[in-house]
């Protein structure tokens, strides 16, 4: 991480009896693309609004650029926000919206117009200044909101679920644009989202939040590959959980009995281990680490024979639900639809290859 720009120290927030933030401690770096990810009600938006200054802390400290924000009201903080609803002022033109924050800067007309045009150009809306805010599409509103927030050159840009109102295609396009924009301006972006895919795509680091606490704070790859708890693993991407028993444990190595897959060795030193969920010890396997073997292919790892129970065709991918030999467990497998490869039918036998090295142990 680069030099820290935001320092959260044991941030607590109560709404009456409701404990919305339960001691958040985190440091966010200069120029970082940081995401707060979690299901609705986990406190991610509250945390963002706390940084913006719209919510008072119950206890704890928020430092921005080394300065304690306790007595700094929202309108004087070096942060700007893109609201979920975009909050475009409907009675003002695009240029008036974008230039709103410069009202108090005392710029002459020409300078102001130049700054506004510069900001609009940055978000790909040059020449839109004279339009009324009414006449904008969802994606354009989003861009105006971005330009309006960035024109003040804040130290931190806060984004509250900025893409949730857009349709899938536009959303994916805006994700790429936001990354590009963040590299361009080089300031810290803090994104609140409930969409784990979005967080994985865009972030340098992600804080996964549950129930007002940070469950795990890591870069996307670590988060995906080495989740720290059952709940994080379940929330990030898709994960097959299979109940398991530890038969023996000897320093670095353990022998596991995995329901449906049988007995295997597990390397405690290199393979990821995490805290178990309420159902006890289990192993986790991502769908892409499992492979179905077609005619003539041989297993690279271990092999079991199951039955195809469900087929979900996505065009580039097919998801198969495979019932494992002992009958109790079903795992999901994702297969790329390579040219010439058939799509299996429900009920067909399936040869499943899996790699013990790809396991995550929840204990």
């Amino acid at each position, binding site marked *: 991480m680069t030099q820290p720009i935001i320092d959260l120290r044991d941030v607590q927030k109560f709404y009456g009896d409701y404990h919305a933030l339960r001691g958040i401690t985190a440091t966010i770096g200069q120029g970082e693309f940081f995401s707060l990810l979690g299901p609705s009600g986990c406190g991610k938006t509250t945390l963002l609004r706390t940084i913006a200054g719209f919510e008072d802390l119950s206890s704890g400290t928020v430092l921005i650029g080394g300065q304690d924000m306790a007595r700094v009201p929202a309108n004087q903080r070096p*942060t700007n926000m893109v*609201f979920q609803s975009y*909050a475009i002022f409907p009675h003002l033109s695009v240029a008036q919206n974008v230039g709103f924050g410069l009202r108090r800067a005392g710029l002459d007309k020409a300078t102001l117009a130049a700054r506004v045009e510069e900001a609009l150009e940055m978000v790909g809306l040059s020449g839109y200044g004279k339009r009324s805010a009414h006449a904008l599409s969802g994606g354009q509103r989003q861009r105006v909101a971005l330009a309006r927030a960035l024109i003040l050159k804040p130290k931190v840009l806060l984004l509250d679920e900025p893409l949730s109102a857009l349709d899938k295609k536009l959303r994916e396009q805006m994700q790429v644009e936001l990354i590009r924009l963040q590299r361009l301006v080089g300031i810290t972006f803090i994104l609140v989202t409930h969409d784990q895919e979005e967080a994985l795509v865009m972030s340098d680091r992600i804080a996964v939040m549950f129930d007002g606490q940070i469950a795990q704070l890591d870069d996307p790859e670590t988060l995906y590959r080495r989740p720290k708890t059952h709940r994080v693993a379940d929330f990030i991407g898709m994960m097959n959980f299979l109940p398991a028993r530890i038969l023996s444990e000897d320093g670095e190595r353990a022998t596991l009995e995995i329901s449906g897959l049988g007995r295997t060795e597990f390397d405690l030193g290199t393979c990821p281990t995490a805290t178990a969920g309420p159902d006890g010890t289990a192993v986790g396997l991502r769908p892409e680490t499992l492979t179905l073997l077609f005619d003539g292919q041989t297993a690279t790892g271990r092999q079991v024979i199951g039955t195809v129970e469900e087929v979900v065709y996505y065009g580039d991918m097919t998801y198969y639900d495979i019932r494992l030999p002992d009958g109790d467990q079903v795992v999901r497998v994702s297969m790329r639809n390579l040219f010439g490869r058939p799509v299996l039918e429900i009920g067909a036998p399936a040869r499943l290859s899996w790699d013990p090295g790809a396991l995550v142990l929840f204990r």
Partner: protein
Amino acid sequence: MKGIWLRVYAVLYLVFLYAPIILLPLFAFNDSTIIAFPLTGFTTNWFVELTKIEAMHAAVLNSLFIAITTAVFATLLGICAARANNRYRFPGQRGIMGMVMLPLVLPEIIVAVSLLVVLLQLGFSLGSWSVILGHVLICTPFSIAILNSAFQNLDRSLEEAAIDLGETPFSSFRLITLPLVMPGIISSMLISFTISLDEFIIAFFLTGNEPTLPVYLWAQLRFPQKLPVVLALGTLLVALSIILLTCAEFFRRRGVARAGKSDTGGFL
């Protein structure tokens, strides 16, 4: 068959509602002091006569003063109540809002008599101000109802966005919220003005010796020969009311459209 009866009912209903009002201009332009059919001829004399009655002019001015003052005060109170209701959550909120809206259904004569008793007991003299007091009381619920819908349609993030961009809470209210609810404010002022201008019972009890226009009108009904003049005045009042209410609704709808929301309710 069902459709026909429904249509007959609708037509009868409208006749019942508007026939008396249509008679008003009819006889106001009729060339006779006797209010009866058949009509005898067209004249604008009664309207000319109107301009010559000094006591009536005083009543008109008095009414206008009361109506304008009432509109301003009722709307100010309405803005406060509507903003509080939409912006904050506080204990007893529903109950308090219910109480504030109650004068809408309270019999005006009760309000008038109670106010009269209270004011006299407190030693106030009657006059324009006591009428304004009563009118603000009955107009405020209308004002709240209109402004409530204006404030409801407002995205809360708008003010926060302005604060986020460096404005103080007050200046963001002035720059963002106020312009957006302005159509509602104008609509509220127009409706309060109209209600106050037409109101009789409260004015009758509280006006003292400076009659408002409706009170003056009522007093003139004792002189049958003046009836056509009264009808002429009534015609003007009805026309003014319709124009004002239409303007009010126009502004209310524009406000809803400006906030980019779908229409919910309103009086017209």
